């Protein structure tokens, strides 16, 4: 466990060397948030009151802000794994006395962790400026941060799973596009889930994507113990499912690895 902790710290330092990369992603994040919140405001002014499903513009804006933290803050782990396979570096990693998925996940989560800290602070500033701060309580802040950390874990596991497919496939980026579009659609990254027709809302809340930031944002804006418990339990269930699937995938595919890409 000690060596994994050191791997985490080294990667954390390495990721923060490229300050310009971090700042440029924050800039695009701010622009996107501003544009979508402007759209929500327009809709609020022109559409019927029940269109927002009982939520205010501020609630939905915070849902968007938190959903985008996880989407923008997560480094592209699937691409890194794919490059390891294509370049043949994977052979060296597999010879090391560390579990490759654990090593890669820690390496990426260290980057995500620093992004999470910086982006959460920035998101609070942007949210306060564009949407207004909700009435905060210890429960809403702690609950949303708890769900946000879970969001990063779900994202890392999804990346890991897609990346591991590169053990047997030539190219996994197209699969990542599709999964990320599901995240865009079902994760409240453009449109809040409450805008969807009932059948699509059911699909969204049954998928892992609603728990990659959106529900954390709703918890931050309007804390409700019952909703929080439901979100946390569903998120934990998805983490358990993804960990099991990732472990099984690694175990199966590592025996069928085709170096330089399937």
């Amino acid at each position, binding site marked *: 466990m000690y060596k994994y902790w050191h791997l985490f710290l080294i990667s954390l330092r390495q990721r923060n060397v490229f300050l310009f990369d971090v700042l440029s992603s924050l800039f695009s994040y701010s622009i996107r948030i501003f544009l979508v919140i402007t759209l929500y405001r327009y809709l609020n002014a022109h559409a019927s009151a029940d269109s927002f499903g009982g939520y205010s513009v501020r609630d939905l804006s915070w849902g968007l802000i938190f959903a985008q933290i996880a989407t923008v803050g997560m480094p592209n782990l699937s691409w890194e794994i794919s490059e390891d396979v294509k370049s043949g570096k994977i052979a060296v990693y597999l010879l090391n006395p560390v579990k490759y998925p654990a090593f890669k996940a820690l390496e990426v989560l260290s980057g995500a962790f620093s992004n999470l800290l910086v982006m959460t602070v920035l998101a609070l500033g942007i949210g306060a400026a564009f949407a207004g701060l909700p009435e905060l309580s210890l429960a809403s802040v702690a609950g949303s941060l708890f769900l946000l950390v879970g969001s990063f874990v779900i994202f890392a596991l999804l990346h890991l799973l897609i990346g591991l497919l590169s053990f047997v496939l030539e*190219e996994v*980026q*197209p699969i990542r596009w599709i999964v990320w*579009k599901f995240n*865009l659609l079902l994760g409240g990254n453009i449109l809040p889930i409450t805008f969807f027709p009932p059948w699509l809302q059911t699909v969204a809340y049954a998928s892992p994507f609603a728990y990659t930031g959106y529900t954390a944002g709703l918890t931050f804006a309007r804390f409700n113990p019952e909703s929080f418990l439901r979100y946390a339990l569903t998120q934990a269930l998805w983490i358990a499912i993804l960990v099991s699937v990732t472990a099984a995938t690694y175990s199966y595919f590592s025996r069928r690895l085709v170096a330089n890409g399937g």
Partner: protein
Amino acid sequence: MGNYFRIFAANMLSAMEYKAAFLMQSSFMAVNNAFIVFVWYVFFQKFGTIGGLDFGHYIILQALMGLAFGLQQLLFGGCWSIAYKIRDGGLDSELLLPGSPLLRILMSKTDISAVGDICFALVVFAWLYVDASPISFGIFLVVGIL
């Protein structure tokens, strides 16, 4: 100009050498774009129009962007590698060669997923404007190229 055409042809042949990857990238990019259409279909179904803009207007804009981005990535996919070349010293060798270094770097790579973007744009145009005249299609292509 012939040399640049040969660079493009070589890029295409190289990309198509990995047939599974070529088919997967181009088809999944088209599906990827279709998701965007679905997101905005859901949106406009609920809200109708936004400041006079309806689903058809929005999607044709999306198709135009897909066409423009797809053509750029297909012909000048090397544009994203200029910074890497400068950082890694790869620009030095380009400057020593005859012809335009910028054009050669821009054409040094073809992003094969761009085929999916272009197909998406053409399918959307055909879907929205079934009875469009050749002139309308020509305008669509020219605007996309510009």
